[in-house]
């Protein structure tokens, strides 16, 4: 290891790191924190809805909770947690030493982090946003308090970070693959990360524009959404959902990727129908952009548009079905091991099928008039997001934990966690399908007694407590398992990330591996000596230097956001200057990184 590098303090190291593995862990830590926060918000809402007319929180607080729960879970928890895995695992899976843009990678993280902090500071500075995570105009543009300004700027800043991360993954996956790692040999997690990144690239700018318009409307008197000035309130909905629907696939595709890895590994079989799986992922990504108006069936876009978007939406069921059956047939004929990681993947299949079929029901436009904006929708998207994304995140956590942290999570505790969580999840959300059809709109701060809604809401809350308790078990597991040291390849893995020492060396691969087949490590286990073949002789490895600039640049935008929210222009200008000066410094100061010497690598590899 480079001496100068090792001497620096741990904190400084983490603040300035451009190592994709450390940034991945930062994403997991920050995302985990926001996940707990969003979960707490959900629990407060479920307590409020436990009994009719329960004044546990006020209406205003409830609206803030529901807005922040949705916003936090989507933007600050689910996506960053997936980014954590993508950052750590994708370069390893393609045999790369880092991502294409290590500096931008760090910048992306810090932008997300400061955006999330900004958004959550609204709780203490005049109230959180209260117009729903969808922030429909004109409620958000003309009838809400400063919370919305925090929403607009917090999401704008973290959204830029997301966009940067998306571009980074795209270029990494295209340009940084090891020799022999053709596109059609890439693991499914890498493939789905690739498609999700493409969706980010083409979806997020629509949100950027939407947020920009909302900011101008609220802060500088623009009139896009002011009907009396010739404005149109539905434009926001189009922009939001042109982003918002692909966003769903940005979340679910990487989770699909995780399941594909986990199911194949623990069935001891290669993924069934690999090329069909890749193709289905691409189709889902493409169709994801064609269906945004199915969120707007009741807005009055006309029967022609409704019919077209209904059919287009139903079409997505076909590639999704292909995936489900290919997973089932991956297990078919295999030797299925019920590890916790695999339990989550196995639990995912029926849960997600439930979410998928209610998705088709919702796509039925004429029936959607009954479902729309009721608890049926709440049930549906929680089935998709918890039953799909969250189970995927936990599956990935148990699967990759040894790789990322060098220790295995306790399996017994993990299984308790799985069963309690799965049970709580179904208990909470299954009944909500009925609650919705029985006449309970979503986003209601409470409900009146005598409408036949009481008992099902109580059941739902009980289920939520199971989920909360289960999550605590997971947190405990993370702590108590620390001593449970893991070998480098604890699951008899198939892909490149399991072919390197544990803990993962800073440079990932001492020698860039040569990939000879899909599932390269498995191939070497079956046809070679079980070790990855090297594609190059051992040599000095070039590494990028860390930099403090990303955190300062993000902080600059954070400061500028306060200037905008309170319309104190000097603060805005100072904040933007901080960011611009850092960009300038970055642009003119050439930094060529450093080298890790051959001998050090040999020592380390020998010791490992």
């Amino acid at each position, binding site marked *: 290891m480079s001496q100068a590098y090792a001497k620096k303090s741990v904190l400084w190291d983490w603040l300035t790191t451009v190592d994709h593995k450390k940034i991945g862990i930062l994403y997991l830590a920050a995302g985990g924190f926001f996940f707990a926060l969003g979960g707490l918000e959900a629990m407060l809402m479920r307590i409020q809805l436990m009994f009719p007319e329960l004044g546990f929180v006020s209406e205003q607080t409830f609206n803030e909770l529901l807005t922040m729960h949705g916003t936090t879970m989507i933007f600050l928890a689910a996506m960053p947690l997936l980014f954590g895995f993508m950052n750590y695992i994708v370069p390893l899976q393609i045999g790369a030493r880092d991502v294409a843009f290590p500096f931008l990678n760090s910048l992306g993280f810090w932008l997300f982090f400061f955006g999330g902090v900004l958004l959550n500071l609204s709780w203490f500075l005049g109230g959180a946003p209260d117009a729903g995570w969808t922030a429909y105009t004109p409620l958000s543009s003309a009838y809400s308090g400063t919370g919305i300004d925090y929403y607009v700027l917090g999401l704008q800043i973290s959204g830029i970070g997301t966009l940067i991360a998306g571009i980074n993954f795209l270029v990494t996956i295209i340009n940084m693959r090891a020799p022999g790692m053709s596109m059609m040999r890439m693991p499914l997690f890498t493939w789905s990360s690739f498609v999700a990144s493409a969706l980010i690239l083409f979806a997020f700018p629509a949100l950027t524009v939407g947020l920009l318009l909302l900011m101008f409307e609220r802060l500088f008197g623009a009139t*896009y959404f002011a009907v009396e*000035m010739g404005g149109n309130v539905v434009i926001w909905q189009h922009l939001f959902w042109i982003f918002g629907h692909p966003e769903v696939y940005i979340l679910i595709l990487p989770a699909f990727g995780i399941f594909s890895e986990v199911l194949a590994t623990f069935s001891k079989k290669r993924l069934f129908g690999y090329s069909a799986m890749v193709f289905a992922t691409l189709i889902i990504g493409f169709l994801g952009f064609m269906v945004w108006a199915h969120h707007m069936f009741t807005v009055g876009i006309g029967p022609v548009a409704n019919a077209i978007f209904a059919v287009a939406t139903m079409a997505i069921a076909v590639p999704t079905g292909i995936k489900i059956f290919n997973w089932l047939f991956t297990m078919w004929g295999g030797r299925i091991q019920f590890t916790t990681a695999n339990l989550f993947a196995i639990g995912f299949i029926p849960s997600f099928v439930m979410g998928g079929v209610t998705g088709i029901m919702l796509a039925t436009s004429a029936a959607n008039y009954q479902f729309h904006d009721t608890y049926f929708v709440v049930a549906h998207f929680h089935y998709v997001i918890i039953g799909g994304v969250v189970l995927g995140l936990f599956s990935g956590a148990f699967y990759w934990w040894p790789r990322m942290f060098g220790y295995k999570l306790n399996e017994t505790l993990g299984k308790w966690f799985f069963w309690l969580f799965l049970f709580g999840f179904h208990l909470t959300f299954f009944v909500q399908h009925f609650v919705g059809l029985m006449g309970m709109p979503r986003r209601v701060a409470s409900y009146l007694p005598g409408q036949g809604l009481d008992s099902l809401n109580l059941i739902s809350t009980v289920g939520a407590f199971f989920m909360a308790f289960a999550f605590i078990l997971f947190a405990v597991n993370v702590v108590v398992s620390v001593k449970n040291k893991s070998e480098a390849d604890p699951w008899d893995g198939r892909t490149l990330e399991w072919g390197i020492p544990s803990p993962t060396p800073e440079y990932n691969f001492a020698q860039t591996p040569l990939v000879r087949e899909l599932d390269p490590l498995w191939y070497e286990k079956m046809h070679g000596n079980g070790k990855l073949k090297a594609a190059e002789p051992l040599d000095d490895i070039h590494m990028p230097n860390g930099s403090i600039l990303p955190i300062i640049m993000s902080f600059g935008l954070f400061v500028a956001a306060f200037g905008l929210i309170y319309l104190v222009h000097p603060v805005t200008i100072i904040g933007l200057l901080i960011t611009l000066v850092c960009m300038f410094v970055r642009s003119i100061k050439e930094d060529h990184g450093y080298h890790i010497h051959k001998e050090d690598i040999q020592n380390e590899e020998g010791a490992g």
Partner: protein
Amino acid sequence: MAQAEEVKHDQALPPYPEKATLEGKNKFLGFWFFLGGETVLFASLFGTYLGLRNGVADGPTSQELFHLDLVFYMTMILLTSSLTSVFAIINMKKGNYKGLLGWMWATVALGVAFLSFEIYEFWDYTVNYGLGFSTSAFASSFYTLVGTHGAHVLFGVLWISTLLIRYAKTGLTLTNAPKFYTASLYWHFIDVVWVFIFTVVYLMGV
């Protein structure tokens, strides 16, 4: 990669210096992706404008405002600047670093000229026609679309100037070749966006 620091400008560069290193390749590809995202950004702004351009409330309409002669000059200036940036890159490929710098400065100058016209245009609409940012939904969406483009031009001017000053004396290297190349890509992109603005906003608006 690391070789970049050792390469001096008097040494022979490979035929495509902008894509010779992995960093250069990454930058090149990443920038194309970035422009893909920018395309969606402008598409969203165009969509918003098209949805709101008839929402003039009590304010002036586009027919009362737009003068094609002014906009025609602006278009010509920006198209010419695209051409000068092409000359710059041709000079880069030929290894004529002075030529690269000179044509890039010409591009910057034309960009500044374009911005001056745009500022004049906005000033004219605001003061002489009473089209403030808040006058109508049309006004807001017009200023947002055209203004966002203008902000991109401004950023391009600042970026290219920074490159020109920073690398005034270094000669062409494997480090700065990708930077000049991506800057010229960016410049073409904002030029193309302007062509759409010229068509969709101005030609369809008179």
